[in-house]
């Protein structure tokens, strides 16, 4: 398809398309699912409340650390929030009990299962014949809370991130960052990033844009990873301003002060600039990975198919079936044709043989007939000749006889007369 650039000679009007899309998306509303994972006491609920400036977690709806469980649970709460005409259905998924047991082996499994089950739900509703509005309950982002030990990642941290980085967008956070001095924090961050790279963990990456300005900002953020955050439910007055913060005898750690912690960076990135991208990456990368693995398993386990053994086909199972059907039809046609040919040939052979033997017999019959006729003729001829001979001879005999008779008579007469 030839694509050509065309210059317009005047205002056409499709530049309003973005507005149309804008209005549509506002009307539809948005949904976002955020998962928080970390040991209890790391300030997860406080951070969520601070991020969304609302009492998502409260005494009525306690955070995960207050809902101590014997085994790791995966629970979710849904809240509907509105801002500036935009409606957001926010689902927070938390994991009470994570990392709190003595033996935490496999404590990530319920989380993985939960993520997969959401993918499965989506896949099923996407695969229905009658599709309706598909609610998207897939996990769009996972905030992983790292305890501020200052010394690097714990084995559990590494294990968890390694197992989840290809299923969900993982954003690691240093929790309760107000227990680290800036230098300690710097060190800690460097150490963590080193370990993350070492273990080839793929945390959420900020997409590159065409905008230079933006890219510079993105680079600045990248340098500060992982983000060190502080959350607070209380509002304190500092220098005449009312801010969220944590009051200490030695001062107030302000949540939204970028000198104190990276909270604003997190909030801006998570909510104000990259929320949609987190959803897109979940849809285009993590979900597609899940889907292609799931479907490939299906076609592989299907009935004997020697093609699938070689390549992981990029075809849909339906298209594959269609192709197999066509192949089979072609194969059948060919088989039919071949059988037909063989059959025709055999018949021709037999018919020919029959013809040949008929011809042979006919020939023999003809020959025999001719032979007999010839013999007949010969016999006839012989008979004729013989009869001729015989009648001739008989005639001659008669003549002779007559002659003899005559001469005898003459003799007799002679004797009678002449001798005296």
């Amino acid at each position: 398809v030839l694509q050509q650039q065309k210059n317009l000679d005047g205002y056409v009007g499709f530049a309003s398309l973005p507005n149309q899309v804008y209005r549509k998306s506002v009307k539809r509303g948005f949904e976002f699912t955020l998962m928080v994972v970390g040991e209890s006491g790391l300030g997860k609920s406080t951070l969520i409340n601070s991020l969304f400036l609302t009492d998502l977690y409260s005494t009525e709806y306690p955070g995960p650390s207050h809902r101590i469980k014997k085994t790791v649970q995966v629970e979710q709460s849904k809240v509907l929030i509105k801002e500036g005409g935009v409606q957001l259905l926010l689902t927070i998924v938390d994991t009470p009990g994570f990392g709190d047991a003595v033996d935490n082996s496999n404590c990530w499994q319920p989380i993985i299962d939960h993520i997969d089950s959401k993918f499965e739900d989506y896949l099923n509703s996407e695969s229905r014949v009658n599709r309706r509005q598909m609610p998207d309950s897939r996990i769009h982002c996972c905030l992983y809370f790292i305890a501020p030990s200052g010394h690097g990642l714990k084995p559990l941290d590494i294990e968890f991130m390694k197992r989840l980085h290809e299923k969900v967008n993982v954003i690691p956070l240093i929790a309760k960052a107000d227990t680290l001095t800036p230098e300690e924090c710097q060190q800690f961050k460097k150490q963590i990033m080193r370990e993350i790279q070492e273990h080839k963990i793929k945390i959420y990456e900020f997409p590159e844009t065409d905008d230079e300005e933006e890219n510079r900002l993105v680079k600045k953020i990248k340098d500060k990873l992982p983000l060190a955050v502080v959350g607070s439910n209380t509002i304190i007055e500092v220098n005449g301003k009312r801010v969220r913060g944590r009051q200490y005898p030695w001062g107030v750690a302000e949540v939204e002060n970028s000198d104190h912690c990276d909270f604003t960076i997190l909030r801006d990135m998570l909510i104000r600039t990259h929320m949609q991208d987190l959803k897109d990456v979940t849809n285009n990368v993590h979900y597609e990975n899940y889907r292609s693995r799931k479907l490939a398993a299906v076609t592989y386990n299907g009935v004997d198919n020697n093609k699938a053994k070689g390549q992981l086909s990029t075809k849909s199972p339906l298209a594959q079936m269609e192709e197999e059907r066509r192949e089979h039809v072609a194969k059948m046609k060919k088989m039919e044709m071949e059988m037909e040919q063989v059959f025709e040939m055999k018949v021709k052979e037999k018919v020919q043989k029959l013809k040949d033997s008929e011809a042979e017999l006919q020939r023999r019959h003809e020959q025999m007939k001719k032979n007999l006729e010839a013999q007949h003729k010969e016999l006839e001829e012989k008979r004729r000749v013989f009869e001729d001979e015989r009648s001739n001879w008989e005639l001659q005999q008669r003549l002779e006889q007559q002659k003899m008779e005559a001469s005898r008579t003459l003799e007799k007469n002679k004797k009678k007369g002449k001798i005296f």
Partner: protein
Amino acid sequence: MVIKNEEMRSLELSGQVGFNSLPHQVVRKLVSQGFCFNILCVGETGIGKSTLINTLFNTTFENEEADHYEPEVKLRSQTYELQEHTVKLKLTIVHTVGFGDQINKDESCKPILDYIEAQFEKYLEEELKIKRSLSNYDDTRIHICLYFIAPTGHTLKSLDLVMMKKLDSKVNIIPIIAKADIMSKTDLGNLKKKIMTELQSYGVQIYQFPNKDEEVGEINSSLNARLPFAVVGSTEDVKIGNRMVKARSYPWGAVQVENEEHCDFVHLREMLLRVNMDDLREQTHSRHYELYRRCKLQEMGFKDTDPDSQSFSLQEMYEAKRREFFKELQHREESMRQMFVNKVKETEAELKEKEKELHERFEVLKRMHQEEKRNLEEKRRELEEEMNAFNRRKVAAETLMGQALQGCSQQPLKKEKDKKK
């Protein structure tokens, strides 16, 4: 938005959170990707399809003028990249060539329907692939079909009715009265009414501009009332007063394309490009494509096993399908083989019969020959005997003769002998 009946709370925000930028985030992404829009123009040769498109987009797209002698209806598509401000648009225009020109128009509809369905098919295939890339899929599905109605006559042609009825479940249709400058205002009004009544009574579903939206609902309602749009197209600039406007100039005046009093062009442009372009794309995807997909899957034998309360396993469905499928194939193979075996048996029997017949026939002949031979032998023997008999006579006669002769010769000797005495 679907809200599950899980416990959900509405909460108040105590400050500026910032997720009201979400629509901006969405739009930003789309703008950077660019949009695509695909228009299908269906109409007779020479009715003004290309001119109208040129006028709509204020540019001259390449076009070969067609003659009236195409043996069948064909479709020709061209893609252009346009940009307006920061918005990039990949516009594909598909024209019918030869529509309405044939003496027998029975086959006119098929190529057009096939084309539309082929684009759905392409999308469906991509959607069903194992490794798919839907996010940067080159979408060729037709978003809008502009159906050009000839401004002659008092009603729709039967071909138009039939065609639009076939199209209405596959694509968004907007009927347009082309070359509207031929008709007077009253005639045009009557024709519009007549067309709409006919479409309604025939059950043709044309595209309805969404009028439920608070912002654009009103505009759209008024636009709905003006259907079908009577348009005039022109890319020539004519000086009217002290402005240059697009118009068609006649000796008796100039028809201004963008003059609402003269034709509905501005309304068409308004509706198509400035107000509802996104809705057209939306309808194509969520209504027409879904319908196609549903039918196609049902055709292939897929069905939802339960109502949406239970989720079924995709795996099971596919596996079951495949097993069934292979069984069917095997069965077909078997029956074909069986058929052949029977055929062979039959023919063999036939041929055997023939062989038997043949041999019988020749047996008969053989016996005949043997008879003949025997006769011949008989006759030969007879002849032999006769010949022998004859020979014997001959011999007998000859000896007798000989004796007689001897006697005769002896007799004279005897006489002589007597004489001597």
